[in-house]
């Protein structure tokens, strides 16, 4: 789309289409666009709630651009408890000043879920509950990005029985949210989403779960280099067996690649060094809602209606089906068909979208 050289009117229409698809209203969008039309570095605040800081750690692993350049040139990151110089009163001042001086123009990045049980006492910062801080900070934001599975879908603290009422942020604020799930998300995916918003000045095209299609539009399984082994019925039967050495498919070791939408097998991790499957372990599906309750991790997924190949897998060795199949429902249309059909449909879908946009 960039290559086609869109003018401002086209750009606005495109944004409107993307925003409408994502539930972003016209008003919010105007604020986003106006924020980027000015030359100054956009103000960004990064909130931390119920999290383990793996998203912050992942973000600083970005390689293009490296995080130092992003902090010096792309954005003015005025609040992040992990890296900021100020503490206590001075830290709170940085947050307050940013919000007041940049009404409607600043970006909020949220790392962590928000506990809602018992008046919110399970996460308090500066004596205030996470929920009250989230509301205060997001009220006048131009855009909100949910980092990682915690903010996007609740992640580990929301796993059964969710003791603290951990809640993803899109359920708490009256504002559209860009969800960037994963535990953590891939560093360069995080950087790309930020860049998409801050440099292109656009809300990326999102799927029905608010995830950028750019990185969450394809299943790990469909882009995995071991996929040919799956299609051929060649499987690892035990860790470090002969088949593991040969790089056969990890489906029978519990791999969640077939139900996981993420960019791991394309972008890969740590500047393209590897991804879980390449290093011998199945995907645990860490970017899918409810993945912690879609286990045990080493039990393989049940049959996919429409796929011929699973029956072959089952005849190769003993199989115990998993009762649940979380994460598939939203994408049933795409998942329950053969690979070539997937590709064909995605083509059609893209063409339809192009027509809509023009």
């Amino acid at each position, binding site marked *: 789309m960039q290559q086609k050289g869109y003018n401002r009117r086209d750009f606005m229409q495109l944004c409107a289409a993307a925003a409408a698809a994502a539930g972003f209203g016209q008003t919010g969008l105007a604020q986003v666009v106006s924020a980027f039309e000015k030359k*100054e570095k956009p103000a960004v605040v990064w909130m*931390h*709630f*119920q*999290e*383990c*800081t*793996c998203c*912050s*750690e992942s973000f*600083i*692993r970005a390689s293009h651009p*490296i*995080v*130092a350049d992003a*902090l*010096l040139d792309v954005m*003015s*990151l*005025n609040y*992040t408890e*992990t*890296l*900021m*110089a*100020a*503490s*206590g009163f*001075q*830290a709170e001042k940085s947050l307050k000043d940013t919000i007041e001086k940049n009404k409607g123009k600043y970006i909020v990045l949220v790392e962590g879920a928000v*506990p809602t049980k018992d008046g919110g006492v399970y996460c*308090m*910062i500066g004596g205030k*509950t996470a929920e*009250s801080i989230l509301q205060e900070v997001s009220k006048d934001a131009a855009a909100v990005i949910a980092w990682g599975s915690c903010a996007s879908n609740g992640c*580990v*603290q929301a*796993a*059964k*029985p969710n*003791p*603290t009422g951990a809640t993803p942020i899109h359920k708490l604020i009256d504002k559209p949210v860009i969800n960037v799930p994963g*535990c953590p998300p891939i560093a360069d995916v995080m950087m790309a989403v930020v860049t998409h918003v801050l440099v292109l000045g656009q809300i990326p095209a999102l799927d029905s779960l608010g995830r950028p299609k750019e990185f969450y539009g394809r299943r790990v399984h469909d882009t995995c280099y*071991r996929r040919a082994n799956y299609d051929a019925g060649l499987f690892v039967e*035990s*860790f*470090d067996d002969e088949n*593991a*050495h040969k*790089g056969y498919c990890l489906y029978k070791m519990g791999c969640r690649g077939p139900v996981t939408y993420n960019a*791991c097998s394309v972008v890969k*991790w*740590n500047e393209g*060094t*590897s991804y879980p499957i390449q290093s*011998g*372990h199945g995907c645990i599906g860490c970017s899918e809602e409810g993945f912690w309750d879609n286990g*045990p*991790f*080493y039990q393989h997924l049940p049959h996919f209606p429409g796929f011929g190949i699973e029956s072959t897998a089952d005849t190769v060795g003993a199989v115990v089906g998993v009762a649940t199949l979380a994460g598939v429902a939203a994408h049933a249309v795409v998942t329950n068909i053969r690979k070539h059909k997937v590709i064909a449909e995605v083509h059609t879908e893209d063409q339809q979208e192009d027509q809509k946009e023009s």
Partner: protein
Amino acid sequence: MTRIVVDPVTRIEGHLRVEAVVENGVITDAFSSGTMIRGLEKILIGRDPRDAWAITERVCGVCTSVHALASVRAVEDAIGVSVPPTAELIRNIMMSTLYVHDHIVHFYHLHALDWVDIVNALKADPKKAAELAATFSKWDKNTTSYFTEVQRKIKQFADSGLGIFANGYWGHPAYKLPPEVNLIAVAHYLDALEWQKEIVKIHAVFGGKNPHPNYLVGGVPCSIDVDEVAAINTERLNLVAKQIAMADEFLNEVYIPDLLAVASFYKDWAKWGGGLSNYLSYGEYPTKGYAQVDSFKYPRGVVLGRDLSHVLPVNPKDSQEIKEYISSSWYDYKGDKDAGLHPWAGETDINYTGPKPPFTTLEGFEKYSFLKTPRWKENPMEVGPLARLIVGYASGRADVKEIVDSTLGKLGVPVGALFSTLGRTAARGLDAALAMGWLKEFYAELMERVKTRETSTFNGERWEPSSWPKECEGVGLVEAPRGALAHWIKIKDGKIDNYQLVVPTTWNGSPRDAKKQRSAFEASLIGTPVAKLDEPVEIIRTIHSFDPCLACSVHLYDPEGKHIHQVSFE
């Protein structure tokens, strides 16, 4: 008398609040409070023990992988399986990689700004900075043009509002470095930020990703095969070797020289921040199997009262040694509220009795934290790099003694200087240097195994739950970068029946116990001078010297008290 509140304490992992009482410019009392809880132990109940590494790994993304290791060790201890030597080497490589990464990131990105005045670096003469740097480092980037360029960037950054560096305590009288040293440190802050993404590629090679690489009960998930393209082959091993060489250079030519240069201007801080006098280390880096503790690179043990002539043994399975108290924590016990419970018999009923948010102080509340209070034989213990070095030193380990003595010599300070904020920060550097040396050893040993094709990475004898005893229990001990970490597990019918974690920051950052004994954070703040009440950089220095990790230390929760093994008093 003034009560200072610092919340949020930033440049740490998690949510920490510190309240300190200051009289005549000196801290006379302190309260450390963890203000976030997630309830992971409750979530673990009933799940497959082989999945626990992944769940507990999510306790912390900064010290990523330490909980995964503690978890697989706990399960392996419970079900009775040992891992192949090659898997042990890979685990050691991943752990020593983490030590080097984590300590360098802590020094530059979480701790340096307590000592380095970034705004003052603008006054430096880049040429003088280059000349000065050449006197203590061979790092070839340290040129005049490099420091000039960094200074230009910082100037531009300062003009646009300073971003993450805004509202720091810049210009505070406690900052003592000359402008040139500030500039060198700021330049290396940026270099370290770029370098740190490199060394973790070692985790990506063996564990598929970082943060949160993959682990496996019974070994490691990757296979080594120099005849296959899809396994860990020569190309992958070369990648690891390159990263080790880069890390070795960064540690020896940047981190350690900077640490010593900065420390030499802050010798005052060898007087403050000592706090407790008891030190605990579980030991780390098994070389002949996890069960053979005497094969560890770092020994296991306790030093009491700073008595370096005695090292006491530690038994995590003895119900009388490690216990947790809740006298000052937002929990309830069914029996004696002031008794301590061993983790295998632990109760974790949350009971928040603090002020209703929003609140301004925790003053007057007997209970003031979501952290429980662990004790070893009723003694508060400091854990972390300093504790490891002290236990290693007192145990007479030659490599530990040599590096400690030579560093004390370079700084011209006595052994007693170790017991301080400065000692703690310096100890972290020495800990990283030791880990760097061992990382090279482990890699060389791995290559020997590759040569002889002794590269099995997985022991599947006890993979199937049907091969486990109906009921079993285990403990997994790890010396994480931040200190002594342990997971206690009970397994019944192939499922987790109870799971308890006692982590480094719970030891260091917990509230008072039943006897009102303070833990390390609180004890170490007492006696520290505070020059400006509204800019308490001194508090931040000492707290940061522990490298707090709050998400790790608060994770317990069981509202119904179900599934928890406990002594019943009903």
